[in-house]
């Protein structure tokens, strides 16, 4: 009798995931037995650093598959995972004071954050529909819980509810799309699916149907219009510390999701999804930029700004060219850096009993805290896409890729909407520098670590803007190594 034909998989490519999984459980246990509130905080930071160490150590140009082709470790995955850890670390440091002020500085936040990171890592490394879905759900469930972490806040619970219901709907769409493609090709493995599609499909109709549902699920994860409705409400309703996290790292995972799904698995159907993405990109740019103008709450404003940024990201992906993918990768990496800084500033300026979430709160910030205003100014100008900040190059490379692949009208539209978008970023700068402050003084939280990180964050945006080449080259390299 055959004992088993289930061989022990090669665990090395998944080592970072294993580290994070084990540590997330440890954080949960420590929370039960430890009196110290700081234990979870320290352990989380150490975990992320350790994972970063392992990922760096095992990084290389080679692509390794394991778990019977369900899991892949390639250069793009390494880069995105490193950025995810970075975003996690920044989120933890930025949030410390905020959480402490609101009695949320507990193991749950940290354990959920680690599980969310794990979910993202699985998504980033997925090479199979099931792993992709597994990671997605792990991430989503953790995020739903995080949004609802402030149990007695009505807005937070409402936001969590909306997020959960709409997320469930999106998961349903996604699964439906996956099942159709499975029916069409007989495989769930992305590489094999590409082969099967190349060989020709029986029904174009089923393919198109499946694609629409998959792209809709993807659009929800990215927060691209018309699947963006949850974004403003969740960003607004969630505690700012959670918003910071939702607004940054998951975008990396969503980008990986898009590349794995569309490029690794569905490249042969490129002509179809390209047009779907174009529709979503234009809608996102339009809705994101237009609606942001009307906002008075900076978290909502940044939420709409996220939607428009995701539109830009889609523009890079839809070109279907190597230049487009690597510029989209560059875009998402820089977007995460900018978004961390912007939400970090909102967190830093909040204190117990006060949320610095209204745009009016930023009036005359320069008069009181010129350095913070300067950092915020850099972040806003960079998001608007002004040189010499990195946001300029992010937009520029996407536009170059677009024009290079013949999408001139899309590039023109993108520029026009960016122009409209510049308005609301510049309004923040205007408020900080040219308006008189409110009578009550705005005192930032006395968190030196967060302030230092904010400074580094702002300067990184400036330095990367002056010397964008290394990061661009890294993105191009990671893309190249992964797409071979």
């Amino acid at each position, binding site marked *: 009798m055959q004992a088993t034909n289930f061989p022990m998989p090669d665990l090395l490519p998944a080592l970072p995931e294993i580290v994070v999984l084990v540590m997330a459980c440890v954080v949960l246990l420590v929370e039960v037995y430890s009196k110290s509130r700081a234990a979870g905080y320290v352990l989380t930071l150490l975990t992320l650093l350790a994972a970063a160490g392992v990922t760096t150590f095992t990084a290389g140009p080679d692509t390794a598959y394991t778990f019977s082709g369900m899991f892949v470790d390639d250069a793009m995955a390494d880069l995105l995972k490193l950025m995810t850890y970075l975003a996690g670390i920044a989120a933890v440091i930025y949030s410390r004071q905020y959480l402490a002020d609101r009695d949320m500085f507990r193991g749950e936040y940290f354990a959920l954050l680690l599980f969310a990171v794990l979910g993202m890592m699985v998504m980033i490394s997925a090479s199979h529909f099931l792993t992709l879905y597994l990671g997605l759900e792990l991430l989503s469930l953790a995020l739903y819980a995080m949004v609802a972490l402030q149990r007695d806040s009505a807005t937070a619970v409402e936001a969590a*509810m*909306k997020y959960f*219901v*709409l997320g469930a*709907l*999106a998961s349903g*769409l996604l699964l439906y799309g996956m099942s159709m493609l499975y029916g069409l090709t007989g495989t769930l493995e992305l590489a094999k699916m590409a082969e099967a599609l190349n060989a020709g499909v029986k029904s174009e*109709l089923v393919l*198109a*149907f499946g*694609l*629409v*549902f998959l*792209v*809709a699920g993807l*659009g*929800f994860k990215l927060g691209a*219009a*018309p*699947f963006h*409705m*949850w974004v*403003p*409400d969740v960003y607004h309703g969630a505690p700012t510390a959670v918003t910071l996290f939702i607004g940054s790292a998951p975008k990396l995972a969503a980008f990986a999701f898009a590349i794995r799904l569309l490029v690794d698995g569905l490249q042969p159907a490129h002509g*179809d999804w390209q*047009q*779907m993405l174009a*529709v979503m990109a234009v809608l996102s740019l*339009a*809705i994101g930029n*237009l*609606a942001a*103008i*009307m906002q008075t709450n900076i978290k909502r404003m940044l939420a709409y700004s996220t939607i428009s940024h995701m539109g830009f990201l889609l523009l890079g992906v839809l070109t279907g060219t190597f230049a487009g993918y690597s510029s989209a990768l560059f875009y998402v990496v820089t977007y995460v850096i900018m978004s961390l800084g912007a939400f970090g500033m909102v967190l830093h300026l909040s204190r117990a009993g006060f949320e610095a979430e209204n745009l009016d709160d930023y009036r005359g910030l320069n008069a009181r805290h010129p350095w913070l205003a300067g950092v915020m100014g850099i972040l806003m100008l960079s998001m608007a896409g002004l040189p010499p900040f990195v946001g300029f190059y992010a937009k520029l490379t996407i536009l170059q890729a677009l024009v290079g692949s013949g999408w001139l009208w899309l590039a023109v539209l993108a520029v026009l909407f960016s122009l*409209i978008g510049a308005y609301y970023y510049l309004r923040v700068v205007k408020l900080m520098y040219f308006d008189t402050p409110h009578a009550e003084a705005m005192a930032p939280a006395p968190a030196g670590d967060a302030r230092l990180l904010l400074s580094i964050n702002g300067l990184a945006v400036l330095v990367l803007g002056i010397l964008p*080449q290394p990061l661009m080259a890294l993105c191009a390299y990671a893309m190249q190594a992964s797409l071979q």
Partner: protein
Amino acid sequence: MDMKTLYLVVPLAPLAGAIVAGLFGKAIGRAGAHTVTILGVLVSFLASLVIFQDVLAGNTFNGAVYTWLTSGDLRLEVGFLIDPLSAVMMLVVTFVSLCVHVYTIGYMADDPGYQRFFSYISLFTFSMLMLVMSNNFLQLFFGWEAVGLVSYLLIGFWYTRESAIYANLKAFLVNRVGDFGFLLGIGLVLAYFGSLDYAEVFHKAPHLADQTISLIEGQNWLVITVICILLFIGAMGKSAQFPLHVWLPDSMEGPTPISALIHAATMVTAGIFMVARMSPLFELSDTALSFVMVIGAITALFMGFLGMIQNDIKRVVAYSTLSQLGYMTVALGVSAYSVAIFHLMTHAFFKALLFLAAGSVIIGMHHDQDIRNMGGLRKYMPITWITLLIGSLALIGTPGLSGFFSKDSIILATQASDLWGSGFAAFAVTAGVFVTAFYSFRMYFLVFHGKERFHTAHAGHDQEGGKDDDHHGHHHGGHSTPHESPWVVWLPLVLLAIPSVYAGWAYIEPMLFGDFFGASIFVDSEAHPAMASLREHFHGAGAMALHALMTLPFWLAVAGVAAAWYLYLVRRDLPERIRQRAGILYTILDRKYGFDDFNDWFFAGGARLLGSRLWRWGDVTAIDGVVVNGSARVVGQLAAIVRHLQSGYIYHYAFAMIIGVAALVTWFVD
């Protein structure tokens, strides 16, 4: 340290100082601000010295240090060209800047904008260094605009004063005219050479020598001529050449240290430097050279005349600067580029000295700038007296001092030239010697000799208070005797007096007749033999100085000094009578040939008229009404709709998603 790192240090050290003093001025305080900026410039000066030694040893550098953008074949980069020409400029800029930094400690001691001032002058030093070290047109233009910007900021440093705001706006606008030409020139270079890199452009230049361009139907011009004239128009703005000179006298509204640094020693010489740098282009066009020479000659002579009737001590020096810039331009026109740079260098020393000494006098006089109110200051301000005398002697070309060697070389070169217009130029630069000597010593005698008028003459001064440097507001009204300035003020004077004396005889031989400049300046000696003929007749610095005693320029200078002495010390009543006799002539000079009036009437008035028309029809109706407000209204309405969609109801959101899927399905499944 690697030389390339050192090249970077030269501009970046002052930039760092400027940033620290500018952004953290409040935190580091006054002493902190001047320490950090002076340190930055000092480092830069020392680095320039090392680089200069390295260049003397034969090491030059031409390469990019940072690529900003690549677009097709066009590379936009920051790069350095380190050769003898830029090395000299770096040394001059950093040295004068260092002196001015130190001097500012004393001059601006009571000013509330102390840190801001230091930040600006360090920023200026950075910009100027970027300009002279550049190896491409783009960076040249960056430096060009950056020095213009800082100059604008500094002329209007006391921004609450009406006259300062007027002056900085004027400087900015006039320079725009020049920069427009400059930019067109750079555009043509890019269009015809396909590159902005100096080396590449100069390499291709001879191949394009015969190409013509037709700007007006039926009229063909050499491309090179058009490029050179356009570039030179830029130089005319920056180096204040006739008729774009009008901004420089007004720029004296700025604090005196920047008059010395920017409006005498460095920025205004950027045009001269640029033309010298472009010598491989200018050498190909006799027309452009003649144009350069004639403009320079007009400036040299006619601006000197204006200096003869000024009563504001700084304006005398300002007109003298205009006139000397004219000399340098003439030298460029006769292909004596090295002479122009040589005069630029010596002029930087003695003119910065004159300005700073004038500033010292102004401090001593408690911010009264009218030379009619001075007199007899020799006793009270001995160091200022002796240094200003040295500066003036150098300026008028006393044999042996630095100004003599450079100015006499210009006159000789002009006489040796045979280009169209060289006869007029030779006359202008020779006659200019008398004028220079006259106004220099008129000022000198009125300030340091004669009766002490500062006890009595203050009634008149108070009425013109607006023109003075009286920002400190101290000692106003109580007119104690003048006093010598503090050491931070006189030390730079002494430091500048040293090269004003010896830089001429020490460097004339290597700079003009040796091969110091090597390949960095190109002269076509067959077509333009002025320099070669000069070299033939040169038998050492000593012989040149001795020989000068028997030449016309020397005796013209003596005559100028004598006339000033006679009119302003012996027969004090004569100038007033001459003025009454020479009614029209005096009025013309007093109105500065009417340029300001014409500009105000024609350009400013015309522009305002045109502007108000465009504003009413173009702006208010078309742009504001339709484009701006119209589009803003549309955007606003769209935004309101989008916002309305965000109802907050979960079923609306779910509905939107389903609609989205349905729409995509109907679109793609057909």
